[in-house]
Each structure stands twice: as structure tokens, then as C-alpha cells.
């Protein structure tokens, strides 16, 4: 990028140090390898993967914004639209469904008053359906950021929502 304008999104100094450390993991000239890790870092800071953020990450890596965008949209973990404070990523795949995953999901939707892809009016929760999270023996499962919530039941879902709402 040749633009001199100050980006509207910027990493904190700690994250900028981390960016340098990540780029150094790859051979000279292969810094594009840092793209996925940097997008995770961006989302961790901003809560979502905004167009401004993607442009900024592109500047850091010396690649065009479109190169960032085409990658970010390929992978499911990057939220390319604004999301609530807590994004619940609920496993909808076979093994979890065998353990009652669909019924628990119906309960979760009712409890939050939203459908898949929506955000609660208070901005607290966004609900997403995801594919297998590699925790099939502990299904039903959902994930909020790094944390896995497993062996879900309607009661357990209520407890978790109460906890996260505090």
C-alpha cells in the first residue's frame, strides 16, 4: 500500500510487538504467512474483522486489501460483520446432534430470543452455527472465544448465559 493516511484501526503497542514476533517466524519475503495469525489478533482486539482492520493488516504485511479480504472471507472464524460482545458458536454437526444438540439449540435460541446469525438487542450475544469443533465425545458443544462449553443441557445453557450476562 502506498497510502500515507493514518489507519483508523491500530494495534496496541503490545500487539504490535507480537506482530513483529509473528512475522519473524517465517522466511524472508514470506510474511504473508502471518495473515491468519494477524487476523486473529485483529479480531481479538476489535471484536470483529472490520474492513478498516483488514486494510490495516494488509499495510502491515505489504499486501493489497483484496488479498486480505479474499482470505478472511474463506475462513469461518473471522466475523466480517459486527457482532455482539459474546459470540456463541454452536456445533450443528452429526455427533453433537445425536446427543440432543438440536433440542438444546432450540432452547438456546428461545432463551436469547434470536435466530442463527442474529445479535440480541442489548448487543450481548451473537449466535452462529458452526461445523464440528472436534469435541464429539462431549457433545452438545458450543464455543465462546477460546472457551469450549461441553455436555450441554437446557439447564447448563441457562447457567452459562446467566454467567456471561453478568
Amino acid at each position, binding site marked *: 500500500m502506498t497510502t500515507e493516511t493514518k489507519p483508523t484501526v491500530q494495534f496496541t503497542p503490545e500487539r504490535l510487538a507480537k506482530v513483529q514476533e509473528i512475522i519473524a*517466524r517465517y*522466511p524472508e519475503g514470506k510474511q504473508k504467512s502471518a495473515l491468519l495469525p494477524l487476523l486473529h489478533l485483529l479480531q481479538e482486539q476489535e471484536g470483529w474483522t472490520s474492513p478498516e482492520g483488514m486494510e490495516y493488516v494488509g499495510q502491515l504485511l505489504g499486501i493489497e486489501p483484496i488479498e486480505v479480504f479474499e482470505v478472511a472471507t474463506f475462513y*469461518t472464524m473471522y466475523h466480517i460483520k459486527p457482532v455482539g460482545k459474546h459470540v456463541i458458536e454452536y456445533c450443528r454437526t452429526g455427533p453433537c*446432534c445425536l446427543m440432543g444438540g438440536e433440542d438444546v439449540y432450540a432452547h438456546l435460541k428461545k432463551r436469547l430470543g434470536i435466530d442463527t446469525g442474529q445479535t440480541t438487542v442489548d448487543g450481548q450475544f451473537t449466535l452462529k452455527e458452526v*461445523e464440528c469443533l472436534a469435541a464429539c465425545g462431549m457433545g452438545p458443544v458450543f464455543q465462546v472465544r477460546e*472457551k469450549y462449553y461441553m455436555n450441554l443441557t437446557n439447564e447448563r445453557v441457562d447457567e452459562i448465559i446467566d454467567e456471561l450476562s453478568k
Partner: protein
Amino acid sequence: MATKILTEHINVPGIETFDVYRKQGGYTAVEKAVKTMTPESIVEEVKKAGVRGRGGAGFPMGMKWSFLAKPEGIPRYLVCNADESEPGTFKDHYLMKNNPHLLIEGMIISSFALGANTSYIYVRGELMYVITILEKAIAEAKAQGFLGKNILGSGYDLELVVQPGGGAYICGEETALLESLEGKRGNPRNKPPFPAVKGLYQCPTVVNNVESIATTPWIITNGGDAYAAVGIGRSTGTKLISASGHINKPGVYEIELGVPVEDFIYADEWCGGIRPGHKFKALVAGGSSVPILPANLALTLANGEKRLMSYESLSEGGFQTGTMLGSGGFIVFDETACIVRNTWNFSRFYHHESCGQCSPCREGTGWMEKVLHRIEYGHGHQQDIDLLVDVAKKIEGNTICPLGDAAAWPVASAIRHFRNEFQWHIDRPTEATQPGAVYRGEMELV
């Protein structure tokens, strides 16, 4: 006492720390390898062990290593595939979370054998907490001189890097994984050239699954022959099986290959039987992509002998009556499970995860999902079953990577063995779409 190659110490408190792992004999295999062995002799032991790729393909690891091109002056890479995403599979998650140093020790030995000085562990991004565990363990190993420059004074240098994925099943395919590691969309590459010649950054590369790499410390300590003595025939060693579904004890179990399927399901040591009051209906033995089998074929071969948990026995009978060991994602269904609904669910998965490069897969997975959806929801047409068979047949073998096959097999096998159940959904839509309705017609339950 069954041999435990991967999980012997997994329940020792604190095993995720360097000190406890070391006290259990950890990193002695690295010492032996870099101080007393040549890379060639390590490859030889792994070949003798006969360990086969544990990610699902089952290709002999030693042979894969021996294909690695070694041109002068060009770096070589080892990449560990920890993108575990095949429905039903959660063994690598379990292994890395609980015993990260075992994988790291295996990475050091394997990298030394292949002459790699930078190696990557590509972990699915959803497992960010496991990445934190691995990075902590790597820092510990480095502080103790097992990673970095001049490991244990051997002159060998190695850096280990953990790379997060972004959420994409396809990146478990090795060339898609390499694309992703280069910061691109996870589109599988056309082969040849194979990664052994042109892999990461166009350099010679070996990609191995977590569980495969984790066998190497034991092989180095005990020898390839000792490893090959465990198991049965060409299915040497042990396998992690991640068991889920309608069983009493879901979880990850390390078995010696060759255990009867029946014992694995019913013995208290493993799955502990079908949940109380229910009957065994069907089995997906090796992850969602392998053919589903009805209970009787899962337990016994066509000749009446017991089917075993091995590469050969599970595939006995070909796709007519057999299946595959695959990744060891063992999903058990009782009579309350609707095969049509499950097949639709798996089809939706493959449609969602298709990268979109090849038309048969991109379009075909979508068609299968749609047709299965309409059958499941009571709008099936009489010709739909044959249509599904036709679409599956036209995807299979016609794509760059195996995702197309992986999408076709579950559909083709479900129809092969449970055709009546599909027909019932089409003939009796009102009945079939009642809440909790499941086909109860003619079928063999165990």
C-alpha cells in the same frame, strides 16, 4: 496389559509441564536420536515400525519420509497437521491438550530425521487454547536446550512454530494446509508436484498427522520392530479411537490394532456398550467420510468372522460390506437415530466445507444436501434416491482432492444399507416428519 504407546502417561498430574514429562522419561528419545542416531537410521526405524498415517489416509509414514526430495541448499520442512476437523474425530485435540510435550518430542525427532530446521504445527484456529498450551510447552523445551540452536550440543538447529488456522475443514487436506500456511485461501493444489518435491514455499515438505508424529519417541526408544510387534498384520501399533454417539462411555481410547469391533463397543474398558434400553443400529467407524455400516456388518464379516479394528478388517468386503478405519472417529448410532437426517447433516457439512474449486464437488455437494433436505422434510420425489446415487457417483474420483469422495461415500453407503429408510421418508412423509419419528421397519438391530 495392553500396550500404551501414546497415552501411558496422559493422566499423570502435571504431564503438560516439562518437568513432569521429563520425570516420566520424556525427551530421552530426543537425546538418543540426536546423539546416537543418524537421520537415515531414524527413517529406517520408522519404516520398520510400519506406522501408517493416522490422519485418515493410512499411508505408511516411513515411506512418505523416504520420498522427501533433498536438493542441496534448499530448506526442507516438516509440517504437522493438527487441523483435526473430521466429524467424529477428537483424538489429536485430546492428545495435544493433555500431553503437548509428546508431540513436541515427536516433532524434534521427525524434523531431525528429515533435516528440517523450521517446522510448523498447523492447529485448527478454534483450538486457540490448545495453541497456548503448545506454545508454553515449546518455550519450556527451548529453555531446556531441546529446541533452538545446537540442540544438546549436536549441532542440529530447530525452531518450532505453531500456526493457527482460520476455520476450514479443507485445510486438513495437506496441500490446502500448505496454501493456508502461506497465508492464502485453503484451496488444494493439483498434484503432481507432490509436497515431498514442492511443498511449503515450493520447498520439499512432509506433512504428518499429530498422532503419527507422536509415535516416534516410542519407536526411537523401543525400536521399530517392537512397534511392529504390536497390532495385527500390516496394521501395526496402536490407534487412538475417539468414540461418540449412543454409547455409555464416549471418549478417546488407545487400542492395539486388531481388537474386535464388538469388544470395543461392549467392553467396559472402552465404550461400555450401547446406552441402557437401546439397541445398536449403525456405525461410522472412521470419521464422517467413511461408509456407514449397519450393526451386523459392523460386527461381523461376510464369512461370519468377527470384524476387527484394523485397516484391513474394517475395509474387508470393499464398499459393498466394508468401510475404513480412517481417522478413528467412531460414531455409534442406536435405533433412535434417523439415518436420513444424519446423512443430510453430513451432506450439509461437506457442502459447507467444499472449497469450490472443482465443479463436481462444489455443485454436487449442494445438490445432495438439497435433495436429502427435501426427503428428510417430507418433500422427497420417487426418483430422489437414484438421483442421489447418481450425483454421488459423479463426484467420486472427479475432484482435485479427496473432499469429493468424502462427501460422496456417506450418501452412497447410507442408501446402500438403509434404502428402505429413505424410501419410507418418501412414501410416508406425514409419518416421517412427526417430531421424533424414526423408521422402525425391517432392519437388523443388535
